[in-house]
């Protein structure tokens, strides 16, 4: 298998022969890939290629059948999701998974959970330390909402927002956990052209602020515009990896997308 690390920066995420079987079905057949720190990495591939499965393995929602996943050089495969989040990996979901009856602000405040600590007794008795922390949580949640441009709707119920804003809110919630690595699962799904443009610009700002972004996306214009690196999966297998230009001209990729022509 070909290793695809072409950047000189140390990899933030290393996938080493990651395999995932569901019963007899092999969803991932040994993925080997490094994601260098500080880039925007896209993962593309036709439906059923194993992109979401890969995200689930990295974020801890699935335990890979074999192989290992290294984050900042440390093994994380098989970790429970909340521990992965604690280490600095956050994500959004293909199907929006907001806390719908909570307010927009509360959704983002929840994202501060792994970076704060007041527990059961401190909150029940409203100890001073907990109140200070609560104020800080509110402030940083507010600035995350500013960052994605949702500060004007912070008191609405999350479930009442239009889909485009719900997607932005999910990103804000993920950012609130202060991730070093952000996984975006089809962030442009269901967005119109204008919204997609804003999203692309937002993802670039996130990357500029020092967060490595990995996104699964079907919108090829967006992927080609903003990605530094693209990984192509096909039926759970590595097909190609490289810069947008290289991928665009890769005959194997063209065939996978257009079928045998």
């Amino acid at each position: 298998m070909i290793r695809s690390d072409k950047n000189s920066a140390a990899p933030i995420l290393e996938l080493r022969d990651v395999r995932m079987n569901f019963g007899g079905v092999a969803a991932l057949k040994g993925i080997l890939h490094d994601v260098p720190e500080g880039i925007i990495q896209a993962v593309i591939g036709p439906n059923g290629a194993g992109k979401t499965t890969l995200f689930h393995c990295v974020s801890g929602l699935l335990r890979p059948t074999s192989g290992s996943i290294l984050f900042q050089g440390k093994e994380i495969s098989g970790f429970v999701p909340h521990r992965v989040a604690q280490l600095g990996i956050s994500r959004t979901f293909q199907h929006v998974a907001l806390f719908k009856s909570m307010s927009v602000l509360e959704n983002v405040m929840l994202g501060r959970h792994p970076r704060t600590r007041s527990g059961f007794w401190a909150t029940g008795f409203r100890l001073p330390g907990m109140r200070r922390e609560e104020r800080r949580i509110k402030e940083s949640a507010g600035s995350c909402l500013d960052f994605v441009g949702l500060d004007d709707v912070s008191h609405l119920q999350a479930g009442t927002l239009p889909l485009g804003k719900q997607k932005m809110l999910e990103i804000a919630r993920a950012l609130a956990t202060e991730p070093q690595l952000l996984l975006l699962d089809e962030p442009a799904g269901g967005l119109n052209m204008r919204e997609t443009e804003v999203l692309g610009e937002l993802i670039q700002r996130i990357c500029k602020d020092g967060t490595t972004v990995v996104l699964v996306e079907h919108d090829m214009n967006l992927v080609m515009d903003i990605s530094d690196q693209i990984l192509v999966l096909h039926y759970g297998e590595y097909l190609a990896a490289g810069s947008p230009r290289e991928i665009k001209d890769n005959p194997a990729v063209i065939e996978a997308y257009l079928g045998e022509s």
Partner: protein
Amino acid sequence: MKKADRLIFIALICFIAIFPWVVQNISAISHYVELMVFAGIFGLVCLGLSLLMGYAGQISLAQAAFFGIGAYSSGILTAHFGWNPWLAMPVGALLAAAVAWMVGIPALRLKGHYLAMATLGFGVIVHIVFNEEVDWTGGPSGMVDIPGLSIAGWKISSELQWYYLVWGAVLLVLLFSFHILHSRVGRALRAIHEEEVAAEAMGVPTSRYKVQIFIFGAVTAAVAGSFYTHYVTFLSPSSFNLMWSIRFVLMVMVGGMQSLWGALLGAVLLTFVGNEWLQVFADFEVVVYGGILLIVALFLPQGLISLFRREPAAPPNPISHASDEG
């Protein structure tokens, strides 16, 4: 605490303060103060259970067992060993917490309604222990010679004093619970209830929180049990059987699962219904409870408290969760 909740809280304090003075002057209902003592004791159980059911999304069918653990701990330590009741009470609470931890850890690691099943079995076992350990509990014939409570040498003797003591405790637990709900911990609990996977991915240790809240419910039930013991000064295993656990669940459901006010409303209402207004049905009481539950589940799934609430529920998400494409 939100502004509206704060206002209701103050109104509740006023109501509690005034209630006995109104009721005691009307001879036909002067015993309502006594009923309110029971309602307050059951209300303590329901507050803990409401957090578990409405916010952690789990059902416990062992609240009567935890209630009993508190009650018998207090009873045995004070009657057999001559302990001070105020010392016996935290021991009972600690025991309940330890037991809840042991039952909760395995049951709450699994997704789904394993806690309901585990607590169902556990509740039955506890009831058998109360029945069979005759040397300690007096068995089916009950336990007597339990002392009352006193505070700093003053014996709490009248119904009125008990009423204020119990409802004071209810107010404290209510305040504590509200603080929990409007904080980091409460947000985590509500998030678990709405989107468990997302909560977990955002760094919330979901099973640890479920265990914590289950333990909290066990502790409030045990403290309520201790109050019950010293108020009634007589214990019999039949007060702690499965029927009582179901009754607690029913109180929370009738009042409204996702509201602490609902839990209190349900506790008060069903205490009066069970002890006062439905005495005529005698043995058919269970049928009446079933009917109440059916009506509430069909027409008021959010409980009676939803009749007083204006804010609309969140609309369903436009995106379906049916498929998860890889």
